[in-house]
């Protein structure tokens, strides 16, 4: 059982860690993502240099971005910065999950921010995407 708490600047701890659920990368999900970002690259539905269909490189980014939702009720937030390293393609049929850790929180110009580093891995623990993101907290 998870006890969800409202996300506030004070509640958030630097060093806090999150783990997502595992997601099976289905052809339908890859197709929906391609529609959402209006990018119908043929590698998403057919052969690719990686031996079969792959997902868009940023496909699992929302899994990472929503890590804090695994513990908090997030009132609203804005995404301020994003960094990616694309280490290996996300292939259709993989099961992927993301892990993250809060590495900083700060206030600037009366606004509150949190910084999270993350890695998205396949079912063997092989890292696929690594990076960090900064999110602005919007108060209730």
């Amino acid at each position, binding site marked *: 059982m998870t006890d969800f708490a409202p996300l506030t600047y004070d509640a958030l701890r630097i060093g806090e860690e999150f783990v997502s659920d595992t997601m099976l990368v289905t052809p339908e999900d890859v197709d929906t993502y391609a529609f*959402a970002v*209006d990018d119908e690259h043929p590698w998403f539905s057919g052969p690719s240099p990686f031996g079969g269909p792959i997902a868009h490189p940023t496909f699992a980014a929302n899994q990472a971005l929503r890590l804090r939702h695994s513990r908090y009720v997030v009132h609203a937030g804005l995404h301020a910065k994003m960094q990616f390293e694309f280490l290996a393609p996300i292939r259709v049929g993989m099961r992927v999950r993301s892990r993250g850790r809060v590495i900083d929180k700060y206030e600037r110009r009366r606004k509150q921010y949190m910084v999270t580093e993350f890695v998205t891995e396949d079912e063997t623990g092989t890292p696929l995407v690594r990076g960090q993101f900064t999110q602005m907290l919007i108060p209730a």
Partner: protein
Amino acid sequence: MAVAAAALAVGQTLPPLEKSLTQRHIDAYSGVRVRSIHTDEAWARRKGFRTTLAQGMMSTAYVSEMMTRLLGAGFVRGGTMSVAFVKPVYAGDRLTVRGVVKELRPEPGGTRVVVDVWCENQDGITTAIGTASGTAS
């Protein structure tokens, strides 16, 4: 077809991408939720926005598309991106994604191609800005 490093030059402008963001695109990207600034217009207005907002992450997908068109597998495996979201993107906006080659750096197995990237809305306002890179052979 990925471009060869020899065909690139610092200062070279990449072909721009045009993206029209509809609420349907945002819904497909974010998943429809109540009390979401992305998919609940009343909630977005309550939070001070004129309508629903696209997720900033959608702009990273557009940059990724531009880089994959340029470098192919050399971006999908070994690519990087660092982007700041400087202005909101709203449902109904039209974005132009632009890139200019900033640096060509030899590295083992190829050339690291570093590109200045940014997105502009229909009013010419920059909404996201940063760099992206990948390798060309």
